[in-house]
């Protein structure tokens, strides 16, 4: 503990109170470390608003969620009716519920844009690998949170969505069927499933999320933020010991963020007031029909934020397996004959490729669909080690990289669209192409990210004073 500090007896009451607290609890150091004197690069652009927006949505979800649990009943017999009760009879209940359902979708809007920012400016690269990986873990926890929350209204989409996703686990060889039984707690999705998903949704996963968010921020504050130029501002310190290209978050980014949050809340409120169902994207129409275990709706589709990964799951048919097996064998052959690995590694890589190919022939396409779906998320964790480009930011990468990222975005949106459509032969081919592109983008990145000539990176960040 530091020595006891005194303030002048003539100081204002506020200063005296703060001094009294600071002598007993590190209030000022906590504030300054977390925000007040957290120096961030001065060239942040609009892409840097989404972190704070994610925090705002988190608070909205927690607050509205607490109020919803006061009226909701986690019981298969009364869950659907209790949600309708909130919508019709609880004073202002429909607004609280719509804030929660809009918040769920907006959380994903904000998080997808936040991740895309990291992707284009190389924010995942050394030394921010752990910040990125904690972020990926947050994304995973958020998906679990959204999926379990979606079961709670006990509508047709809730029921059949949960049925499909829980059955995904039964595709795992040997332990699969018992595992999915353990998750459901019954032979079909039922009351036991609803009750435990409620427990996970309202307490278990949120606690994990909060822990991961803390880790994400602690890691970020250790390295400092990246910026649109991808320049390490800490290499150029001023006489005060802070980077010359950085400014304290308070008051500079406080005002920026309040402005951004205000714009966001305008959009958010407009959705809650005028289009809470968002044309069936935020709240699917089939979910206004109570769950019926005997009848699957004619068209079932996941919520939009799961659609790209769902599309990849659906693209793995037995025909697609031949393509995937060919890819695995080609990768093995490349590692064995063309790569610069030491000999034992070459042999090991070829052996692994052969073993995987054999397993792919032996086990159903259904299981590999699940592997592809999981792999689409897991691969993000490895991004820091896949990118070999000599510069971080898209601004100084070769021009053709920009087209690569543009196609990636288009393919991702296409997969999302296809994931919400009824299956058809043409769409199946398109989603198979999309899946191959998605994985090719990441798995071939060590190779393609080195191709082309990077532009010179300036010593100081690009910044025009207003």
């Amino acid at each position, binding site marked *: 503990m530091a020595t006891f500090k005194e303030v002048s007896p003539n100081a204002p009451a506020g200063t005296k109170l703060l001094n009294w607290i600071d002598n007993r609890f590190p209030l000022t150091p906590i504030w300054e470390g977390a925000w007040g004197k957290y120096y961030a690069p001065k060239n942040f652009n609009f892409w840097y608003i989404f972190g704070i927006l994610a925090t705002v949505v988190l608070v909205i979800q927690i607050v509205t969620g607490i109020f919803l649990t006061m009226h909701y009943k986690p019981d298969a017999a009364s869950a659907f009716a209790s949600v309708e009760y909130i919508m019709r009879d609880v004073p202002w209940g429909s607004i609280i519920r719509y804030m929660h359902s809009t918040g769920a979708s907006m959380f994903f809007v904000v998080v997808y844009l936040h991740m895309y920012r990291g992707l284009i400016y190389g924010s995942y690269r050394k030394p921010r690998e752990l910040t990125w990986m904690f972020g990926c873990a947050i994304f995973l926890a958020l998906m679990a949170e959204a999926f379990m929350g979606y079961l709670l209204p006990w509508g047709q989409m809730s029921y059949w969505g949960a049925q499909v996703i829980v*059955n995904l686990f039964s595709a795992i060889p040997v332990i699969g069927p018992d595992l999915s039984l353990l998750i459901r707690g019954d032979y079909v999705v039922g009351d036991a499933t609803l009750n435990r998903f409620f427990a996970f949704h309202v307490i278990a996963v949120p606690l994990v999320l909060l822990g991961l968010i803390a880790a994400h921020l602690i890691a970020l504050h250790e390295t400092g933020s990246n910026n649109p130029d991808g320049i390490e501002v800490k290499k150029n310190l001023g006489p005060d010991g802070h980077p010359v290209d950085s400014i304290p978050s308070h008051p500079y980014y406080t005002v920026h963020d309040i402005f951004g949050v205000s714009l966001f809340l305008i959009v958010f409120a407009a959705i809650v007031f005028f289009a809470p169902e968002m044309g069936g994207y935020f709240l699917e129409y089939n979910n206004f029909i109570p769950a019926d275990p005997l009848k699957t709706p004619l068209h079932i589709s996941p919520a939009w934020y799961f659609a790209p990964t769902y599309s990849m799951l659906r693209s793995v048919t037995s025909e697609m397996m031949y393509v995937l097996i060919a890819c695995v064998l080609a990768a093995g052959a490349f590692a064995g004959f063309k790569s610069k690995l030491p000999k034992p590694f070459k042999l090991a890589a070829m052996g692994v490729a052969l073993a995987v190919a054999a397993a792919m022939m032996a086990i159903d396409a259904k299981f590999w669909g699940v592997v592809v779906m999981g792999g689409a998320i897991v691969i993000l964790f490895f991004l820091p080690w896949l990118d070999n480009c000599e510069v971080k930011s898209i601004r100084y990468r070769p021009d053709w990289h920009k087209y690569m990222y543009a196609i990636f975005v288009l393919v991702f949106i296409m997969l999302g669209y296809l994931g919400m459509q009824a299956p058809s032969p043409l769409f199946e081919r398109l989603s198979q192409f999309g899946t191959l592109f998605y994985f090719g983008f990441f798995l071939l990145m060590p190779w393609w990210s080195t191709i082309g000539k990077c532009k010179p990176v300036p010593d100081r960040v690009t910044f025009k004073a207003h």
Partner: protein
Amino acid sequence: MSSTLTTPPMGGDSSVDNSKRTWLIASSCAGAVGAGFVAVPFVSSFSPSERAKAAGAAVEVDISTLKPGEKVTVEWRGKPVWIVRRTPEQLAALKGLAPQLADPDSKRNPDTYTPTYARNEARSIKPEVFVAVGICTHLGCSPSDKFTAGPQPSLPDDWQGGFFCPCHGSTFDMAGRVYKNKPAPDNLEVPPHMYLSDNRLIIGEDKKA
């Protein structure tokens, strides 16, 4: 930097009290085993309760009013069970389909999906009456009826009638046999069932039981 930190203050490995370390490792292992035992009740509480296990009684159905080409759905163990009385045309169409099917003779996992008395082309005891669990073997959606033959959306032009799963597009013929190149790996499950009389069917029990 790390090399200076790892040098023990007394110098050399002799400063490690091996007997103390052995006991530390041993008690940590004992603690881990204890934690494992503590986890048992929590993990076990996830498995189906006694009440859920008990709720699996057989269901009796009267099919005297079921006309050819019609289907009735009953609930057994929380799952939909279909009973379809197939028309002679639908039965005749089953014959030529084998090359398009993934497992026409129900040879894959027969113990799970096809009881011995249903291991035939029509996958049924009586050729015209088809009994199956209406849950797709892919990811558990309930397929919809597409009994009318001929071209229609999401189905091939030479469609002979059968079932179509709206979730991932798996197709099954009128005997619940899955078509090739579809996400579902297995034919639809035929539940244990038997006839109590000509028109009375019990689902969930057969002669073995």
